[in-house]
């Protein structure tokens, strides 16, 4: 009976009900769009950042993070790779040799960061190379080839096929050089990355650094970023060596982590603002509705409705509005999310590709909403809306029939 009365009250004040529903639906849809695009951007930042970096989880010698040096490397990797691949959450894992050095040409020298990779297992698709502007990608683990960024090529006046010299400190601490030939020139979207980031066949790097078959790290890529903590725990338990560090990407790329946390905080602030706007709207409508119906509420109580039942009736009205408004908002919001997830939000006319916090941001933003997020939005908006109905409901329950039914 209470629900029936509540539903009819909502139908009777249709315009007011529709306005409130629209407000809740709009807020819900807006929250879904904002959170979807926010999460999608984070996913993109993390994905691109991890491609440039060392995966979701990095396995490297203990102390390498604090003091990277070619003298610190993992001598044996097959056992580690076997442990890693046994985890079902793991998508891929790549042995890599990273380091820093100076790349020289006839035009001068530039400090660079290099990564020795095995193109047989690690193709260009998994790295954040937007496109090869000229030349080709590496085609094997051996050969004196180097793939460099567009900016570096400009600085050193290098073209495909030209020679260049890489000077590094090897694992013994000796300064050594190797002659490389430019295999390809890529374009990542970030001038900073294009200037510093280079790729060399892994065996060439191992030979140059005199580290045998050793690697400086194994980059572990997971199917889902949210599995990082779980897999990290499992790998730390399986690889119980004091000489090996198993680190999450947040440790390897603290600037990316900080940016994601900061951006999340702003996202939640935005979410809070939406909630406050929706809450004020709901509170205003329900309170006005209670005050407008003071006489009716007085009648209900005069004929014997208990204060508690009046309270439940108003809360039922709020619940119905909340459910209908949030459900409508979810449908509208999901429509936008679906569009942005498939077509993306193209901001290329406002902003190009740029790098931030050690990662690259595309100008096309894709929405990403996990079911848990949708449930979270639904629950938070429903609960907030219902909470806003509590004060008006108590106010209604405190109605004195005699005062409420005074002559109209």
């Amino acid at each position, binding site marked *: 009976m209470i629900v029936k009365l509540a539903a*009819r009250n909502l139908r009777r004040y249709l315009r007011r009900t529709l306005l409130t529903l629209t407000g809740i639906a709009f807020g819900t849809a807006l929250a879904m769009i904002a959170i979807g695009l926010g999460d999608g951007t984070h996913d993109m930042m993390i994905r691109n950042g991890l491609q440039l970096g060392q995966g979701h989880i990095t396995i490297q010698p203990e102390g390498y993070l604090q003091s990277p040096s070619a003298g610190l490397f993992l001598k044996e990797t097959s056992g580690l790779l076997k442990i890693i691949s046994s985890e079902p959450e793991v998508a891929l894992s790549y042995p890599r040799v990273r380091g820093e050095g100076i790349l020289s040409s006839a035009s001068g020298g530039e400090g660079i960061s290099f990564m020795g990779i095995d193109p047989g297992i690690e193709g260009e698709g998994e790295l954040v190379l937007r496109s090869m502007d000229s030349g080709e990608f590496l085609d094997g683990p051996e050969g004196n080839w180097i793939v460099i960024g567009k900016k570096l090529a400009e600085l050193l006046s290098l073209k495909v096929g030209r020679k260049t010299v890489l000077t590094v400190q090897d694992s013994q601490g000796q300064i050594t050089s190797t002659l490389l030939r430019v295999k390809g020139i890529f374009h990542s979207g970030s001038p900073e990355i294009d200037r510093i980031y280079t790729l060399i066949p892994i065996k060439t790097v191992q030979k140059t650094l005199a580290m045998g078959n050793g690697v400086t790290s194994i980059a572990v890529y997971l199917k889902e970023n949210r599995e990082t903590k779980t897999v990290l725990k499992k790998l730390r338990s399986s690889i119980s060596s004091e000489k090996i560090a198993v680190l999450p990407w947040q440790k390897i790329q603290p600037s990316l982590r900080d940016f994601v946390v900061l951006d999340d905080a702003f996202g939640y602030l935005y979410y809070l603002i939406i909630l406050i706007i929706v809450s004020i709207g709901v509170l205003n409508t329900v309170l006005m509705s209670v005050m407008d119906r003071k006489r009716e509420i007085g009648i209900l109580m005069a004929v014997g409705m208990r204060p508690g039942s009046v309270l439940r009736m108003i809360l039922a009205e709020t619940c119905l509005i909340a459910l209908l408004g949030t459900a409508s908002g979810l449908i509208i919001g999901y429509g936008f999310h679906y569009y942005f997830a498939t077509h993306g939000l193209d901001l290329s006319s406002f902003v190009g590709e740029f790098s931030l916090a050690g990662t690259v941001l595309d100008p096309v933003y894709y929405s990403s909403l996990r079911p848990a997020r949708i449930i979270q939005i639904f629950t938070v908006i429903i609960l907030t809306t219902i909470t806003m109905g509590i004060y008006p409901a108590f106010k209604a329950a405190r109605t004195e029939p005699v005062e409420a039914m005074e002559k109209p």
Partner: protein
Amino acid sequence: MPIIKTEKLTKIYRQGAVEVVALSEVDIQISHGDFAVVAGPSGSGKTTFLNLLGALDKPTSGKIWLDEQEITALSRTDRSSLRRNHIGFVFQFYNLIPVLTAYENAEFVLLLQGVDQVQRRKKVLDLLSIVGLSGLEDRYPHELSGGQQQRVAIARALASEPALVLADEPTANLDTKTGQELLDLMQQLNSDINITFLFSSHDPEVMERARRLIILRDGRVVEDRIK
């Protein structure tokens, strides 16, 4: 044994620093089956008196007994239960619930009482038939005339089979003919089912028909006579 008994019933309204005495030390007894009217000029305390007897309001001092139960000290929730189960109300402005149909308005108190659906349906249809509204069950209050709305209000007041029906100026908003029809109906219910009716009114027709006339002036009973 009276159905209603009051002892030094007093109600004082405070409007800022000003005190308005609406009722002053009213002692009265209403018997089962009475068909009584409380009359008096505007502001004499008629509505206040009925509101107190109906547990819609609390007195400033004094006591009220309904069927020997003292009701002045009851909590809000207990007063709700009392109104639901023992008292029927008919108001001057009908006071139907606008979102409910005639049937649902009459059914409302039975729903509050938890009466099962089969019994509710039988009772409500019977009551609507008694008050002459058969066929109009699905009409909303705004689709009914004033007289029809007041009939629904009477059906609602009788639904819980109350010992007492309090009717606050029930004919004030009706034309003479409709008012007379309603009084006929209430008189008939009073004689057939022995429901106690207590009216507040200054309608001569109501005063004429009442078997007992209580006249209030300035919150005091100045006349109480059985005709």
